[in-house]
């Protein structure tokens, strides 16, 4: 039996008096690539924040690699959902990456040779060395995403938690970033949990699909979940799963603006 990377037991989160989801049981094996799907507002980001220890559970427990979740652990690298950085934000991309390593330590951000080497190495790995000295705000969306993945990786995590890393990227960059994440998962055995709005770019290498909808969190193998009937039920709107001539699955549908708030009064 593979080591468990993530073990969620009977977990629930309540925010502002509303139960976001409850009765969640989920197990993810080490080195798995997991896609998290679901309508807007269903609690996907909340699920990620719960396993980062940023949002507390109202019941149940979450264990990462056998240990209870703890905010700030080096075992997890996080890329939050966001728009682009402000174009006027004047901090070098390499400095931002380094903050992922030592930004939580008190004192002045003085240069350090050892940390500089680790920044070099991780930037090399994600292919972002060329623009490490440029201010983050001046980089393109794809370049910013590589920098942020480097930032998430620099503490040497065993799990990457990525909230819509492909959003607002063009098709080429979606492809490139997906391949990069797949490589990190396969070659370094890093478990990946990735929230995706559009599942198509990552569909070829997803090991497991977790879907968050209607106050529940369920999971299954891609071939069980990525089906016309399942996705249509999940999103509450017609979704079609097609198979291309070379055997790839493609999800087609208008599954964007549906928001489930089943516990609202």
């Amino acid at each position, binding site marked *: 039996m593979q080591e468990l990377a993530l073990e969620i037991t009977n977990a629930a989160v309540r925010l502002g008096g509303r139960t976001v989801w409850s009765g969640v049981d989920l197990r993810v094996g080490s080195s798995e690539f997991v896609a998290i799907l679901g309508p807007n507002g269903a609690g996907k980001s909340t699920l990620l924040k719960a396993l980062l220890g940023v949002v507390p559970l109202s019941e149940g427990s979450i264990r990462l690699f056998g240990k209870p979740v703890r905010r700030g652990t080096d075992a997890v690298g*996080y890329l*939050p959902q966001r728009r682009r950085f402000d174009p006027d934000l*004047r901090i070098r991309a390499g*400095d931002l990456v380094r*903050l992922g390593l030592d*930004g939580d330590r008190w004192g002045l*951000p*003085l240069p350090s040779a050892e940390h500089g080497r680790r920044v070099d190495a991780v930037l090399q790995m994600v292919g972002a060395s060329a623009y490490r000295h*440029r201010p983050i705000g001046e980089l393109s969306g794809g370049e910013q995403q590589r920098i942020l993945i480097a*930032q998430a990786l620099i503490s040497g995590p065993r799990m990457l938690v990525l909230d819509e890393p492909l959003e607002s990227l063009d098709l080429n960059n979606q492809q490139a970033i997906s391949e990069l994440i797949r490589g990190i998962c396969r070659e370094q055995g890093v478990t990946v949990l990735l929230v995706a709005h559009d599942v198509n770019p990552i569909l070829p290498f997803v090991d497991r699909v977790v879907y968050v909808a209607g106050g529940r969190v369920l999971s299954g193998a891609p071939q069980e979940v990525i089906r016309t009937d399942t996705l249509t039920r999940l999103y509450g709107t017609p979704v079609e799963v097609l198979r291309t001539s070379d055997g790839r699955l493609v999800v087609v549908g208008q599954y964007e603006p549906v928001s489930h708030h089943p516990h609202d009064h």
Partner: protein
Amino acid sequence: MGGLLDFHFMQNAYAAGTLVALLAGAAGYFVVLRGQSFAAHMLSQVGFPGAAAGALLHVSPVLGLLVFCAAGALAVGGLGRDVDAGDRTQSAAIGSILALALGLGLLFVRLHGGGTQLIYSFLFGAILGITDADVQVTAAVAIAGLAFLAAIGRPLVFASVDPDVADARGVPVRALAMAFLLILAISVAVTVQIVGTLLVFALLVAPGAAALQVTARPVAGVAISVAVAVAVTWAGLALAYFTDLPVGFLVTTLALGAYAAARTARVLVPA
């Protein structure tokens, strides 16, 4: 240098001005990085009645400034939201409260029996009237402020540019925001002595803005911001001594000049 430092009041002006410039330059880098210029402006206006209350109670105006600015920082932090984020209802409320602050200052000045000279010095600074006691308070505040800023520097940069990841990495983002507001409050309080409540931007925003035009490195940014603040203060005081023009006018002009030069340099020589 025909006697620039011959007079005791000029020695005090240079001592206090340098201390203020060191703190305001360092804090100012973070003000600009965090986009908190409006918070700095708010705290300076809250400082006006503070200075007047200090005069009214026959303690030093700088002590009144410290108390009022710190109380203002706690109130701003207690709102729980970023005042610079632009909430319509909140900005209307804050605008009204700031007007009240100036009105209160006016009341305190009247109760004190002081005239336009006192109001003038609170609004535009009175660096040439700094006492030995003011210099001592300024020194203590500047050293404490710089030491505290040095201690929280790195996580503050992290929380300023990337709050979501900083939070997930265990950085106390909200506590740091509060701590920085307090540092900003004491920086404003001592800066008001030099350039008055209406002109604090000259030392608290312009040097940081100039620094961020020419560098994207945090340590270099703080160093340049401090250097600009000190240079502008020294030059402003010297020019005021020799020309008899107001210090506030000279410091604001030089500060804007430094920012304009930095901006031009960035356009002409792209990084």
